[in-house]
């Protein structure tokens, strides 16, 4: 492990106050010894930088998929008190409510394995990659409703069923959305991109449930061994990117106005309850809602393709859950024995509320929130469940994915997209993307082992393993 970092328990580490000047609380992260070799100094510095922000409560936290980002590290979590704390776009990221959802089907592996026609049809139906434009007609008034009502708008418009909303974090929309604080530029970017996947690490993957760790939870979530599922990973597209860019600039001015000292310009922030802080929160929530609507639109397209190809009913493909992993939320947590409303930033981290949480629908209350962790291309993804330990240790948060360990430059130098595609095909996984570059960029080798990452959160107890999903076919941007 890196110098200056202290071990405080099995897979638990502390970055003491003083690691960088001005830290108000220690940093804390969860990582196994073996994953420790992948830890970058830059990521720990970013974790420590977050600890300098006003109003931070208890710890600046990072999950085992921690890596070097901008502002907060990826995998970063921090809660701030509402009266003294700040809100920062650097703790949310450019891709607001980048998130992931899982849909189940009545199909089994033999129905889908080797079906290139299915992957080609999904690639044709779901716009992907640079310049991908929506095939749905989304008008500016529709966009307004997407930003206010999120996945609710999509379901009301016919792109889903009411039950989908019960299985979305926050019921598929944040009530604090304020579209007046979303710029015209952001709205212009949002109209043509509703229902598009994007590029980079975003994907749509057909998977099979290959292992059940927790039969009781799996049953409640609607998962059974051998069942085929579809996982969708994407975010708020150009609209969210523009909101982050616009408000970062506004908050830079606010940082000076409120005389907040920050160690990195990407941590520009404002008091949560200041006009500037509220404006960013409203615009961020509107972008988060756009992202939920976007994933709902892609779900609709996917269900249409599967229904047509396999003669399924639309209702035969229920949503297991939809989680956000780049977002700031006002949540109630126990702080020094008292229930308190705080602003939790999750940047590349997933909410993992435990059993009994008021936020969960009745059918999930006993088990806890489903947590969906995408693996890298060609490796396992996982479903976990939230725990009470997460509520105590991490403000109800866990990891969000595998976490990169190899740079894109190195990936392109060392790996060939064609070889990776051929190798994955031998393993029974069909990959479809716009370019070989996109495949090399996201090859399994560039990520930490998703098995190791989820084992850490399972052992620490901030979420518990429910099921493993193995890939059968994937479309990428």
């Amino acid at each position, binding site marked *: 492990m890196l110098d200056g970092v202290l071990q405080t328990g099995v897979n638990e580490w502390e970055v003491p106050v003083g690691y960088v000047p001005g830290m108000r609380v220690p940093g804390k992260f969860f990582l196994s010894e073996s994953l420790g070799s992948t830890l*970058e100094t830059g990521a720990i510095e*970013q974790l420590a930088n977050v600890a300098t922000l006003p109003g931070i409560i208890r710890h600046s936290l990072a999950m085992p998929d921690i*890596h*070097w*980002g*901008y*502002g907060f590290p*990826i995998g970063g979590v921090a809660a701030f008190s509402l009266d003294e704390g700040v809100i920062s776009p*650097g703790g949310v*990221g*450019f*891709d607001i409510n980048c998130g992931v959802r899982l849909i189940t089907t009545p199909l089994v592996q033999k129905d889908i394995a080797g079906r290139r026609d299915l992957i080609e049809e999904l690639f044709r139906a779901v716009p992907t*990659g*640079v*310049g991908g434009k929506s095939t749905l007609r989304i008008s500016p008034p529709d966009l307004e409703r997407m930003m206010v009502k999120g996945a609710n708008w999509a379901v009301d418009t016919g792109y889903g069923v009411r039950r989908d909303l019960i299985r979305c974090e926050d019921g598929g929309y944040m009530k604090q959305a304020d579209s007046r604080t979303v710029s015209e*530029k952001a709205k*212009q*970017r949002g109209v043509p991109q509703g229902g598009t996947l*994007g*590029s*980079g690490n975003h994907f749509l993957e057909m998977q099979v449930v290959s292992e059940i760790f927790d039969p009781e939870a799996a049953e409640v979530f609607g998962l059974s061994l051998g069942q085929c599922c579809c996982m969708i990973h994407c975010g708020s597209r*150009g609209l969210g*990117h*523009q909101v*982050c*860019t616009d408000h*970062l*600039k506004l908050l*830079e001015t606010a940082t000076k106005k409120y005389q907040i000292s920050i160690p*990195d*310009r*990407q941590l*520009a922030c404002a008091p949560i309850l200041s006009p500037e802080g509220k404006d960013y929160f409203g615009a961020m929530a509107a972008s988060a809602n756009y992202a939920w609507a976007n994933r709902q639109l892609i779900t609709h397209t996917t269900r249409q393709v599967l229904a047509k190809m396999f003669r399924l009913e639309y209702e035969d493909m229920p949503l297991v859950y939809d989680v956000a992993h780049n977002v700031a939320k006002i949540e109630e947590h126990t702080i020094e024995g008292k229930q308190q409303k705080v602003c939790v930033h999750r940047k590349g981290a997933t909410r993992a509320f435990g059993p009994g949480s008021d936020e969960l629908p009745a059918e999930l209350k006993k088990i806890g929130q489903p947590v969906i962790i995408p693996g890298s291309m060609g490796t396992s993804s996982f479903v976990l469940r939230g725990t009470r330990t997460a509520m105590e240790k991490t403000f109800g948060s866990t990891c969000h994915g595998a976490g*990169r*360990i*190899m*740079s*894109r*430059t*190195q990936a392109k130098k060392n790996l060939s997209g064609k070889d990776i595609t051929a190798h994955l095909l031998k393993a029974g996984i069909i990959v479809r993307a*716009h*370019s070989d*570059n*996109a495949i090399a*960029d996201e090859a399994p080798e560039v990520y930490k082992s998703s098995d190791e990452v989820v084992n850490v959160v399972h052992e620490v107890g901030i979420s518990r393993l429910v099921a493993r999903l193995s890939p059968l076919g994937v479309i990428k*941007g």
Partner: protein
Amino acid sequence: MSFEEISHTADVKIRARALTPDALFTDAFLALMQVVYGTDRKDGITKEVRIDSDNIESLLCDFLSEILFIAEVEGLVFSQADITIEGLSLTAVLSGESFDPLRHSSGTEVKGVSYSGLVIEKDANGYILDILFDV
């Protein structure tokens, strides 16, 4: 053109060297276009952009963010820029073509231009830039 991609785990880090700020900004602009749209980019359609900012780092971030916006909303892919910086005002005459999915889909969308690790410095050999694009 003098820029290179530097190893960075999650995002795209670009290092550029140039004799003048105008040339340095041009390198950053060309790097951004190459990351998103690849190397096969033609000229033809021209567009003028003006940006004013409070400091040189913001001027660059604001300019590149504006390019991302114009390219996406107007469906344009740029191959050249004639950039003039006077104080903290920038004028750029851009040249490019309409987005062609067959030739311009091999890159990666840039979600934002980051201030983290942004360095613009002058040394005896001219100007040097480090900049991070979130992808």
